[in-house]
């Protein structure tokens, strides 16, 4: 690794410039306006203010910590101040430019209201801009001061700041779970109360500090236990976890169970795609096709509508249709797998994308309307029932989905450790070498495709039954991208990563209603950011992580990940 060169203030200014550009984009995309009505601390701080400050805070923090490493504490303060104030300066310039340049003609969100929201308080014009830059400078200095703190405290502070924001955003959700007295103390009708925010901050700060100090000791203690004891411990943790999962719907209530169901559908799908992409390295962008096939098989077999189909096949119950739906997805996986497996790498991604679109267009077309219901879709899909029970509410569905997650988890976890799993990983790392080791590429790839398709079909069948009706619009390419994003954020090839990814990408946006409009925008940014800074995911798979780190030459992701600052000095 090359030696770190001394940090110059020009680098800090560049970082600040990025922060400012990000802030401008956030403002013009409409996030500032949307989040202005969401208070984090009631009547004191709004979500847009938090977001904009973060755009000054983050570059300042990185600039300051780098400056401190190479040039010392004094310079770090200056670096933080420079980065913070430049980020704020850009926002101020935007606020000044909106009305005179009539930016609204191009950018729908560049309204005079936005100017008011960007400017601090009721200030206007140049004075407002100066105050804004000063505020950026203060945020930058605070960020720099934070870098002076020892590591444990610094990390804990950042964790607490993020947590306070999240706890404020998730007020509706958390209020359901916590005792009423606590609720009344920390929350107001709009966001956290001041004393509540401080309490939450301090409590989480203490917990985070303790955790960082204790966790290594705990790990060491567990590692020192004899193997039999560790097995007992693992068993007990699993039981406790399962018990919690089965008790969850009673605690969560109807709305949260609904969200949990949705997350569950995606976990099953993502576990399936994980086999295809994570284990075998085949990028499948048409994965939604198998989900749709599962859902549509369920729909077509169990609906009382579609007279043409009914004249051939009698109306089935949910449990009779379920194996058929899964089987249909599996067959489709094999059938689509055969032509697809002739290609590799990038072409595979595009060809599967093409297949996914073809299937959607076919379902949507008038040609297949008597069988598939066309653009109006199908209604009256059967619900699971048996033993005098019937799953109607989200809580009841939760158990069915949980069971299917456990089955999918068990299957993929066992597959990963089997001969099949090792063959997949060999194919992922190098197809030609794998073939030379007499791994039958076609057979193993087909197996991966079929496994993935089966799980997607399972998820789709439950999805169709839960909705009770479906339209082809629910099965567009965005679903495939969604599942892929879940995998990437969690960590490709990693099973716990799938759950983390699904909660972060499916659960959170569902709970943050204001956020929903910007969901895809943020997904795109998250995909790029993950690939640039953390390609192994949040909860990486050990093998995959090693692979990625090996493939990266050390100087590719260096201290200047975008390469912009480096090129700025090259004469052109």
């Amino acid at each position, binding site marked *: 690794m090359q030696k770190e060169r001394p940090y110059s203030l020009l680098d800090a200014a560049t970082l600040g410039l990025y922060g400012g550009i990000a802030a401008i984009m956030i403002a*013009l*995309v409409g996030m500032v306006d949307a989040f202005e009505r969401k208070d984090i601390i009631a009547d004191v701080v709004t979500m847009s203010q938090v977001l904009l400050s973060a755009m000054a805070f983050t570059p300042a923090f990185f600039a300051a910590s780098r400056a401190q490493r190479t040039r010392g504490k004094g310079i770090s303060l200056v670096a933080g101040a420079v980065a913070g104030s430049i980020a704020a300066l850009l926002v101020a310039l935007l606020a000044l430019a909106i009305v005179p340049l009539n930016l609204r*003609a*191009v*950018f*729908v*969100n560049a309204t005079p209201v936005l100017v008011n929201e960007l400017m601090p308080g009721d200030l206007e014009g140049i004075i407002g801009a100066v105050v804004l830059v000063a505020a950026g400078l203060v945020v930058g200095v605070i960020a720099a001061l934070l870098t002076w703190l020892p590591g444990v405290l610094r990390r804990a502070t950042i964790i607490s700041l993020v947590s306070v924001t999240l706890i404020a955003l998730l007020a509706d959700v958390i209020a359901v779970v916590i005792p009423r007295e606590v609720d009344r103390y920390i929350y107001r009708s709009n966001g956290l109360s001041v004393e509540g925010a401080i309490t939450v901050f301090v409590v989480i700060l203490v917990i985070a500090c303790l955790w960082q100090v204790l966790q290594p000791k705990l790990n060491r203690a567990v590692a020192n236990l004899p193997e039999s004891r560790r097995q007992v411990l693992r068993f007990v943790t699993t039981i406790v976890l399962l018990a919690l999962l089965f008790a969850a719907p009673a605690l969560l209530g109807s709305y949260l169970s609904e969200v949990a169901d949705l997350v569950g559908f995606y976990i099953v799908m993502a576990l399936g795609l994980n086999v295809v992409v994570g284990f075998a390295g085949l*990028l499948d*962008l048409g994965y939604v096709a198998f989900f749709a096939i599962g859902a549509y098989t369920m729909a077509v077999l169990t609906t009382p509508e579609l007279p043409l189909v009914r004249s051939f096949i009698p109306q089935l119950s949910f449990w009779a249709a379920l194996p058929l739906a899964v089987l249909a997805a599996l067959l489709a996986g094999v059938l689509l797998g*055969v*032509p*697809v*497996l*002739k*290609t*590799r*790498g*990038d*072409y595979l*991604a*595009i*060809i599967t*994308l*093409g*297949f996914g*679109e*073809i299937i959607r*267009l*076919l379902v949507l*077309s*008038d*040609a297949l309307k008597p069988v598939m219901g066309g653009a109006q879709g199908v209604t009256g899909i059967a619900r699971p029932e048996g033993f005098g029970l019937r799953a109607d509410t989200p809580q009841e569905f939760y158990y069915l989905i949980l069971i299917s997650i456990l089955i999918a988890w068990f299957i993929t976890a066992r597959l990963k450790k089997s001969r099949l799993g090792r063959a997949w990983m060999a194919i992922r790392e190098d197809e030609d070498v794998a073939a030379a080791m007499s791994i039958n590429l*076609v057979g193993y790839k087909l197996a991966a495709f079929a496994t993935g398709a089966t799980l997607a079909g399972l998820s789709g069948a439950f999805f169709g039954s839960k909705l009770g009706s479906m339209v082809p619009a629910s099965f567009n*390419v965005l679903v495939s*991208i969604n599942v*892929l994003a879940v995998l*990437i954020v969690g960590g490709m090839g990693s099973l716990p990563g799938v759950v983390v990814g699904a909660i972060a990408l499916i659960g959170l946006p569902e709970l943050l209603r204001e956020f929903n409009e*910007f969901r*895809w*925008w943020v*997904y*795109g*940014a*998250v*995909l*790029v950011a*993950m*690939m*640039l800074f953390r*390609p192994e995911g949040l909860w990486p798979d050990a093998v995959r992580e090693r*692979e*990625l780190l090996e*493939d*990266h030459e050390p100087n*590719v*992701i260096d201290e200047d990940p*975008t*390469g*912009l600052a480096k*090129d700025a000095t090259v004469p052109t």
Partner: protein
Amino acid sequence: MFSNLRRKYDFTDYILWLIGATLLIAIIYGSFVTLSSGKYTTEQWLNFVIFGLAQGGIYALIALGYTMVYGILGMINFAHGEFFMFGTFGAFFVAEALASSGFLESNPLLSIIVMLMAAMIVSATVAVLSERIAYRPLRRAPRLVPLITAIGVSYFLQYTARGFFGSGVEAFPNVPALAGVVQLGPITMQRSQIAVFAATGILLFLLWFIVSKTKVGRAIRSVAEDKDAAALMGVNVDRTIALTFALGGIMAGAAGVMYGLVFRQVAFYMGFVPGLKAFTAAVLGGIGNLAGAVMGGLILGVIESVGPSLFLEGIGIPSPHQLKDGIAFTVLVLILIFRPSGILGERLSKRA
């Protein structure tokens, strides 16, 4: 040890041939039924072809960007359709300003040139920025990483446009000089289509000139051949790659103006399907091959406009035009399976 190599065909090949033969028979049968029914006159068929060629010209311009980037980086720039979309928006805002000032009516040719410039600048800027921020740091990463990044860039750009410009469909201003039709013998052509042909021809010539006759073009070709060797010969690889992206963006921006003039609408999601079809065109002609991209675009445009009436209607599929996109994607799938090197490209096929 070599028995594996000698066994050239496995069961998947037989299944593939079966699928191919079935499709071929269906196409021939459908065409035969339609042609013998005499539902469409020769003039109508010619009009279908003209429409297809105009559409195909737009695909060709977008496909050039895919093909150049693939040729130089070996990477599918999934976000290329988004560059095209931004170009259309750039042209749209300029066109609106020109239309409201009356300049568009009094000076149509100049206005279109201004619109082209605006679209090209916007698209090229977006392309170069994407390359710098998202793709450049990942140049040596494993293959899947840049592709996933490109998908991320694509969605980020698409929804940036949605946030910036609104989620509705906007009507592209009418250019009075391009309204109406011209009768050329038996063929009826819309004036906007003639404009597309003329502009596409000029741009293709310019691109060909840049790539094959100038120093910059030589740099691009040398980097496509071998990055390290090119760097040793004093070629600034980073700058050349950025320039390739800029050229691709310029072509996509021009395609955006054409699209606006012919179809008269702009929306944030409009980049995805044309992008995918242009990629199909690039693969059809042989990815990495400039002439191939143009040829692929034109062929795809014609297949798409003739196909639904010719063979889908013949097989008896109701409302066949719904499946127009389906035809394009089927072509994509078939080409990737049966001839991934495309019609003209041989050399690059080993990369796929």
